């Protein structure tokens, strides 16, 4: 069983800082392996333990992406492929093209795994786009994956229903964070990961023109609360509150 797992070195949202105009400062922002991607790596490793084979981690991004790939290697991935982009901001479409072209170079794969979305932007666009580009069936938001020799059975939890989807292999699947508890690599594994291979592919060598949307800015939105206090006897304050709510269009 050969499994590709696509991961992203995301901006660490807990450490994100904003300038006076409310714009996120992305240059030199702290990054981390996108939180849910750890679930995708964990699932790939779980399947490998059951079925044997190889897990290869792919990531498209600037130099920071190496850190995430090393973490995936420390968790237990066998190899890693870094598609080097010049900047952090690449559209989802461009990233999908880069990933699918790189995956093509390393095929065949039985499974391509993704997380449900990145922990910084969370567009959830890449898994569907990559599967389409590779011509593979795509099953999103997997909560449980059962891999058989020729097909895969995936459970999705949709509100009160559980949907079971079967698909022939190869297939692409995105997983939700509830699917597993990602392992912590131990220090020994961190040291061993330093000796594992990370292949490098430059984005221009894949013939992908950076296209699609361009990120103009990422800005924090805040809504000022009105903080109005009504004072007086209960009947009077209730009436004042009701009038105010009507004025604001909250009630008619």
């Amino acid at each position: 069983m050969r499994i590709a797992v696509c991961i992203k070195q995301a901006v660490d949202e807990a450490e994100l800082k904003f300038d006076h105009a409310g714009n996120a400062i992305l240059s030199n922002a702290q990054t981390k392996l996108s939180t849910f991607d750890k679930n995708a790596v964990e699932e790939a490793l779980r399947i490998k333990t059951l079925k044997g084979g190889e897990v290869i981690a792919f990531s498209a991004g600037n130099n920071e992406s190496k850190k995430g790939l090393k973490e995936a290697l420390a968790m237990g991935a066998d190899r890693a492929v870094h598609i080097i982009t010049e900047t952090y901001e690449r559209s989802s479409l461009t990233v999908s093209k880069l990933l699918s072209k790189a995956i093509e170079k390393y095929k065949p794969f039985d499974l391509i795994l993704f997380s449900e979305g990145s922990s910084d932007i969370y567009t959830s666009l890449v898994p569907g786009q990559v599967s389409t580009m590779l011509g593979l069936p795509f099953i999103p938001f997997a909560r449980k994956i059962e891999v058989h020799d020729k097909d895969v059975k995936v459970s999705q939890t949709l509100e009160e229903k559980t949907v079971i989807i079967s698909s022939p292999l190869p297939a692409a699947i995105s997983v939700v964070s509830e699917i597993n508890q990602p392992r912590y690599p131990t220090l020994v594994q961190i040291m061993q990961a330093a000796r594992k291979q990370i292949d490098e592919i430059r984005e221009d060598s894949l013939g992908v023109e950076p296209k699609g949307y361009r990120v103009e800015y990422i800005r924090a939105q805040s809504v000022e609360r009105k903080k109005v206090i009504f004072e007086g006897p209960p009947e009077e304050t209730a009436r004042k509150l009701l009038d105010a709510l009507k004025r604001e269009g909250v009630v008619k």
Partner: protein
Amino acid sequence: MSGLIEREHELLLLQSYKEGEQYIEALRNIAAFLEENVLPFSEEIDLGKRSISELRKSLFKHGLCSIPFNPEFGGLGLPFSVYVLAMELAGAADASIALSMAIHNTVADIINMYGSPEQKEKILPELLSGKKLASFALTEPSSGSDARNMNTRVEKRGDSFVINGSKTYITNAPEADVFLVFARSENGHVCLVVDRDTEGLEVGKNMEKLGMRGSTTAEVFFSECKVDSSSLVGKEGEGFEYAKSGLNSSRIVMGSICVGIASTAFRKAAIFSLERRAFGKSISEFQLIGEKIANMKLKINASRFLCFFASRMRELGMDFSSHAAQAKVFATESSLEVCDSAIQIFGGQGYTSSDVNRHWRDARLLTIGEGTSEILRILIAKKELAGLR
């Protein structure tokens, strides 16, 4: 950036090693593990609602104690300074766990330095993996600082050593599987590895303490306690030198744990000072609070750099005994001052909340244990004056 990791950790490693990036990664990994698995339980540990046993096991499994040892025995073969910084992070997450593991590792360090090849092969893998917990039995009811004058006796009888006497304030004793025991024979001081289940060895009950309440401490009694001669570490007569040598390194680690304790107290107090309002503004805007914040930070960094400096001296094979003592005296005393300032900034809440005042209580041990500040100042003065004579 991971919460426990500070820019200074990264810069120290980058400036000192060409493999600095790799060591930073190891440190980040330890920090992330501690933040998720240890830090959230630190208050429960202090309040006696949780034992450190399972958390300590998970840290052994993660590799914390293996950092500076040879891969041949299950170590990671990383520099001692990486271990010192990792223990600072452990101290920042929970001082009791850090203390327990540091004492355990002092035993491993002495066996690694002076043990026979057979002892290393048998004991070190068990200690580094945490399969067995170790305890360092030196202090006695009548000899703390004056440890050389210990009363515990050991007698050679045939192919065995027989120990009689008692030890006190022994960290890990209630849980330990193996004890490194120091005693006096007619040929001088002796260092022995003694298994817990050896006949004639008894452990007293866990002592109540002001701080470090998650770690266990007890008396250990030896009555005609007979061990095989293969239990002897190094040479008969050299035992006290081994203890001193182990303590030199251990003092750097104790200093480092105090840097961690102080960092956590600092972080809590600094955030509180920004949030707490008085007279219409954040108390961080008052200059007297600002002075405290500045002094806390400079003491933390100065302590951290002294500990790192001493550990680099050890790595480079230099005599580091004075610098280890300097690091411990400065870091432990500074930690007490920082934790005291944290209580002051928190005011009433600092005095009443274990989450604030336990840091001071934890740090309070370490101007006493592993060499009091007074004894260490004598050591520093002697060393420095000898260099001028």
